């Protein structure tokens, strides 16, 4: 009896091991072998309108599809900027810039009222119809007639007319001078994708039919075509085009995987389980706890090949005080809030120390080190503020990375480098000092008093803050907000962290004290600040109570900033030196004024399994953003190596 019981148990284990076996010959879907397929995560969540591939409507990004391969593999536009260092390719010295459908960079006339674009020849849609300037013109004209289409209202106001002097040239006549009009066709995360005129003209009776059109099956201008998809919106399978060389990916070489499968709707625990079972090659993002668990495996890689794991996204997490509401309208109060934070505690509470800090109003990622963070070190070290008791108080602290390194070394051991330069490159070159004394001085300078252990405002009211925090959907950042609230409360400012669904709406209306979030996202690979800063110009300023239509919900207003943005608007985007110089002016101004309190980049804990595929980008080989929902992730597929080709 006992023996047979053991036999049953042994058979059960043997069966389970067999089930978990790595098998390049097993089918992912009928006719598609695992060894030929790379399985990647799209974090969108299950799509409730899975049959629609119409990326041009505003509904595409919600529970409709957008990043399930459509923008990464199926569609294309004029230019792409890589958020990291990019790959070398023909015709460009700057690896981060890719002339994708365009043959060259955008060419403007002197007063930026005309933009001329030369297009590449020999690019074909997946039905073997050639891509031409007529497709671009049709796209802009169709969108301009649909006010609820993405880019529609922009094209309606910005484009006066268009001409196509030949099949491969398009000229945009703009309604007003605009040196950044090409931004509409330049991918950072996405951009305006080009429509196949011949297909849309056949399917749409009028331009407004676009809003109810499914574009199914989608025509592809990218290197892959849609092979199959789940009618419940949980996975999408793309197949490499036989004529992939007739697409712009040809500048980088052949995409290696025959198939790319996007898996949607995976909770954190399932991502970890699926990758451990070798059923998910690329995880877009997982919690810090998840990546710590995955990183124990030899087959796993991540951006830093160990601590601090995550890829610093060109998105800046910041504390966003309401500059239009007292006492946050006072620079001294904002500085006091910054200096009363022990950033090491914030780093540990949120990302378990795996952070890339930024004292600047700019995400510390991509090429920003070269353009901004290195050149700004001297300024930051010399920067002094008047605390009331010390007219030349120097707030910058370059020892933060070392402190965090010492704190996390007991957990992560040798994975935390001891070399100060490498550690600073990982965790950030510095942040503001934790100095409650200087913070107190600043509050006193702002007219506040401390009674007992609580701060009181000039008018005698207790200084309390309601902090709009992240919700449970992002536990890492929710912990960050909670720690900020705890630190301010400990300093004597009673702070309540509030995670409510209407936080976003109240933030837009200016009905808030302090919000947690981001209002600055950079190109990553290019120093131009217009991407995030143009709507901070005072001509778009809206008073409290009216919804702000841009990124300046903190309602910061500065003549100096207007001056910088005006200069940006009449500068040549292609003059990177000029862009960087203007960016430095912006960073110096905001470092002094502290309209928001920048904390760190949004670190995306992406993880890759090297069992079936290898060659993913990382910190030492930063040729692309490893985050799978970005359109730029298409480049990764050209750099991979197939490890286990199917044998049958």
């Amino acid at each position, binding site marked *: 009896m006992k023996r047979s019981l053991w036999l049953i148990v042994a058979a059960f284990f043997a069966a389970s091991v067999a089930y978990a076996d790595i098998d390049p010959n097993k089918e992912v879907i009928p006719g598609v072998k695992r060894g030929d397929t790379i399985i990647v995560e799209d974090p969108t969540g299950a799509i409730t309108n899975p049959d629609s591939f119409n990326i041009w409507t505003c509904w595409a990004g919600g529970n409709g599809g957008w990043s399930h391969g459509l923008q990464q593999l199926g569609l294309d536009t004029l230019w792409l900027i890589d958020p990291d260092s990019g790959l070398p390719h023909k015709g460009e010295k700057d690896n981060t810039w890719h002339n994708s459908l365009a043959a060259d960079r955008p060419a403007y006339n002197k007063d930026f009222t005309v933009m001329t674009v030369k297009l590449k020849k020999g690019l074909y849609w997946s039905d073997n119809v050639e891509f031409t300037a007529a497709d671009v013109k049709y796209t802009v004209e169709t969108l301009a007639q649909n006010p609820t289409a993405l880019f529609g209202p*922009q094209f309606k106001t910005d484009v006066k007319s268009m001409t196509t002097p030949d099949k491969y040239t398009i000229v945009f006549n703009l309604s007003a001078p605009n040196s950044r009009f090409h931004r509409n066709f330049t991918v950072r995360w996405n951009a305006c994708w080009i429509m196949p005129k011949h297909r849309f003209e056949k399917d749409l009776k009028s331009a407004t039919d676009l809003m109810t059109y499914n574009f199914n099956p989608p025509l592809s201008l990218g290197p892959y075509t849609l092979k199959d998809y789940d009618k*419940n*919106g949980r996975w999408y399978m793309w197949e490499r085009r036989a004529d992939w060389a007739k697409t712009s990916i040809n500048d980088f070489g052949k995409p290696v995987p025959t198939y790319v499968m996007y898996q949607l709707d995976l909770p954190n625990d399932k991502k970890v389980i699926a990758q451990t079972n070798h059923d998910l090659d690329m995880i877009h993002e997982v919690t810090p706890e998840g990546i710590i668990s995955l990183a124990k495996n030899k087959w796993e890689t991540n951006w830093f090949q160990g601590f601090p794991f995550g890829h610093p996204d060109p998105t800046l997490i910041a504390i966003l005080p309401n500059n239009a509401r007292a006492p946050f309208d006072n620079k001294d109060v904002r500085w006091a809030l910054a200096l009363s934070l022990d950033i090491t505690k914030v780093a540990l509470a949120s990302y378990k120390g795996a952070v890339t800090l930024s004292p600047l109003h700019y995400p510390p990622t991509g090429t920003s080190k070269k353009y901004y963070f290195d050149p700004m070190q001297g300024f930051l070290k010399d920067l002094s503020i008047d605390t009331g008791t010390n007219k030349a108080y120097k707030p910058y602290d370059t020892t933060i990375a070392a402190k965090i390194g010492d704190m996390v070394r007991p957990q992560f051991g040798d994975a935390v480098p001891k070399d100060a330069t490498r550690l600073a490159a990982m965790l950030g070159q510095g942040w503001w000092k934790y100095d409650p004394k200087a913070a107190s001085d600043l509050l006193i300078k702002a007219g506040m008093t401390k009674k007992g252990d609580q701060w009181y405002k000039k008018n005698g009211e207790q200084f309390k803050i309601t902090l709009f925090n992240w919700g449970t959907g992002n536990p890492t950042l929710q912990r960050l907000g909670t720690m900020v609230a705890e630190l301010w409360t400990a300093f004597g400012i009673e702070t309540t962290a509030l995670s409510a669904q209407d936080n976003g709406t109240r933030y837009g209306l200016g009905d808030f004290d302090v919000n947690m979030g981001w209002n600055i996202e950079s190109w990553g690979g290019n120093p131009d600040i217009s991407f995030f800063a143009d709507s901070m110009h005072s001509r778009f300023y809206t008073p409290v109570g009216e919804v702000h239509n841009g990124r300046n919900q903190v309602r910061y207003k500065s003549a100096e900033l207007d001056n910088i943005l005006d200069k940006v608007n009449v500068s040549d985007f292609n003059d990177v030196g000029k862009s960087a110089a203007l960016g430095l002016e912006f960073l110096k101004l905001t470092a002094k004024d502290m309209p928001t309190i920048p904390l760190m980049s949004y670190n995306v804990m992406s993880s890759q399994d090297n069992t079936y595929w290898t060659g993913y980008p990382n910190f030492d080989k930063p040729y692309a953003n490893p985050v799978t929902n970005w359109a730029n992730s298409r480049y990764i597929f050209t750099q991979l190596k197939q490890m286990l080709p199917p044998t049958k």
Partner: protein
Amino acid sequence: MTFKHVFNKNFGKYLLGRVGQTIMVIIIGITITFIIPRLAPTNPVELKIQQMMVSGANIHPEAIKAFREAMNDIYGLKGTLFEQYVNFWSRLSRGDLGPSIFSFPRPATDIIMKAMPWTIGLLLSTSVISWIFGNLLGGLAGYQSNRRWTKWAELAANSIRPIPYYIFAFILLILFCFVWPLFPTMGAYDPGMDEEWMNPVFLLSVLHHTFLPALSLVLTGLGAWLLGMRALVSNIISEDYVQYAEVAGVKKKTILYQYVMRNAMLPQITGLGMSLGGIFSGALITEYVYGIPGMGQLSYRAIVGFDYSLIMGVSIFSIVGVSVAVLIVDLLYPIFDPRVRLN
């Protein structure tokens, strides 16, 4: 007991009253569901704009303004609340819930109908299975409380009962998808299959994928029914009429099924009715953990996305489901309980 016996004049009055009550509950429930999301300080248009802003799209401030106006128009959010309410009932009377706001222009009804079979399939079967086996075991455990197996069954039920169903779902997931990966981690059926409910291969695949979520729901549900029935039976067996029947030499089987369990069934039937009515709102966390495309996930997404049409659709099914289930249970009472027949 004859048909006439049960469905007498009193029953007619009882029926009319209960049907009237049910209709009122449904109308009030739907009205409240219509009003609540519209009282929130945000709306789907603002949510959409925020979503576009944080997803990295760069939109010109003036373009956002134009976009907002056009979207309010398209979503029908321009009229007064009363006008929207009247429009809503007029559409509902034609069986039209309108397009989903976040999956525009797909009709909300279409999305709900796609999710419904999954939820009904999972929750109806697990509710009924756990109810039948839970009550049967609970009845036996209460009646034969000195047997060894009943003690073990009670111990097992007591151990599982306090575990929330979603924690149990995670435990099963970790055990059977990770430690011993016998079951798939993703989806409700194998990728590449068409959703053909009459195809046995598809059904087998669904069974393979939904076995663990079903097991988690059955085991946690079964524990609750077992303990409830056991407690009821323990009380009933000490009643005079049961003891008299035993003394009179009535067969044990007859005593158990006809005297004891039949009397203990009334609250259990009410419970079953309520739980069956509630299945329309789905089992959110189980569906989420196992990737089942059912109503739970759908309602969650509808709420966080302020998708008014979907919220209304899911709520209507839920309100009608619970109300009708309660009505059916009320109508079944006269069959089981002679006191109701006598008003």
